[in-house]
């Protein structure tokens, strides 16, 4: 029992040390120098990145959650099959390809990048919304109906709160993916921190590389963490689960 705990603690310690070592090494090597040398440049790219992510994610949430709700209504059960399969198929198209296609269609710049990110975020949210609502035990809905809940009350008081965990997981996945994919926006002239990452790769310049890659990674981790914290407030304690497999 205690040996197992020890092993876990050791691993945690090792990982923390490695992480610290990485940061010390990269910092000492001056790999973040660019951020200090060109703070405006950094801020400019960072803002671009954030704008892309926020805009595309909010649009995606605003579209896919209602759509998910719609297709789980009994009337649309048949459409649901179609939409979910299309969504699953869409999920196989790599983010890079969506970005490229958006560019050939909309030209270069911010717009195609946001559009591609938006498209790419739709699917996880839609899928999780549908799965979350569908997995609610039918007897709960039966109980609610039997107690005189009106359909919209069932939706807002029973279905959404109980599916919230799943929906939020979808949003988290989408936002995190989004932050990573936004780093590709450089390719189509969309800007963002991908600019420095690609410069770093192309010039084999670790300063550009890490000054771009590390902030993007931290941004993703931070977004994930923030959303988890928000989740803690928004989602009822009664429906939170620990480990989920899908």
């Amino acid at each position, binding site marked *: 029992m205690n040996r*197992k705990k020890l092993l876990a603690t050791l691993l945690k310690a090792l990982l923390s040390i490695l992480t610290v070592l990485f940061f010390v090494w990269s910092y000492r090597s001056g790999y973040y120098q660019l951020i200090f040398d060109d703070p405006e440049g950094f801020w400019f790219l960072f803002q671009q990145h954030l704008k892309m992510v926020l805009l595309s994610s909010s649009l995606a949430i605003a579209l896919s959650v209602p759509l998910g709700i719609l297709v789980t209504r009994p009337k649309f059960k048949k459409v649901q099959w179609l939409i979910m399969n299309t969504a699953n198929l869409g999920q196989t198209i*790599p*983010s890079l*390809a969506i970005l490229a296609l958006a560019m050939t269609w909309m030209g270069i710049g911010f717009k195609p990048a946001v559009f591609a990110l938006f498209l790419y975020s739709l699917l996880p949210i839609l899928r999780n919304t549908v799965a979350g609502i569908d997995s609610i035990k039918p007897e709960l809905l039966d109980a609610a109906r039997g107690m005189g809940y009106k359909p919209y009350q069932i939706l807002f008081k029973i279905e959404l709160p109980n599916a919230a965990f799943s929906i939020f997981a979808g949003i988290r996945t989408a936002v995190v993916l989004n932050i990573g994919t936004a780093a590709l926006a450089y390719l189509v002239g969309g800007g963002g921190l991908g600019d420095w990452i690609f410069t*770093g*790769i192309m010039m084999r310049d670790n300063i550009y590389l890490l000054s771009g890659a590390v902030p*993007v*990674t931290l941004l993703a981790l931070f977004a994930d963490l923030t959303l988890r914290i928000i989740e803690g407030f928004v989602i009822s304690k009664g429906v939170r689960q620990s480990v989920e497999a899908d």
Partner: protein
Amino acid sequence: MQELWDYMINNQTLIWTYTLEHMQLVGLSVVIAIAIGVPLGIYLTTNDYLAETVLQMANVIMTIPSIALFGIMIPILSLIDQGIGFVPAVIALILYSQLPIIRNTYVAIKNVDPHIKDAAKGMGMNTIQKLRKVEIPNALPVIMAGVRQAVIMNIGIGAIAAFIGAGGLGVLINQGIARTNSTIVMAGAIAISIMAIVVDMLLGLFQKKMTPKGLEEDLKS
């Protein structure tokens, strides 16, 4: 559409070469990822503390944007002269595969009905027999689902590996972008998507074949 078709016909060999490169990349990394992730996932079921740590770690890796991970690995792997190309790409894909594979293995084995495990132990199976005859077969559908998820994800991320010189179908997309030629972009996107869909289907069939008949009921639900 006609243009696209013509392009694909005219460049069959090229597309095929890139496809093979792509499959090599994804295939090798997934095989290695399974070899690491499944035993690790199984081991973790015996140590919950470690499981928590490892799953958290895998979770963190998943949040690292792929191009950033490629980027971070370049200076590190450059220390052994392997900063670009196949090696960093494979390592990144292995890392990304760990979460779905470890998590699904762990959860699947954990979720095997405790009564069944108890019965196996009570009839005198040793740990290995219990794993081989009872736990793994019953966990297989979920483990395979994790592998499938990893493969599909890696096919997508593999496209980005083209930027660190790992080749693959990402080159086609990148060339399409560079030439603002939607035909080439589409050819690349379609080739990757078809690959993902076909691989997904094959893995689905494989999963079905590997699933013990007695579990088919569960699979449907």
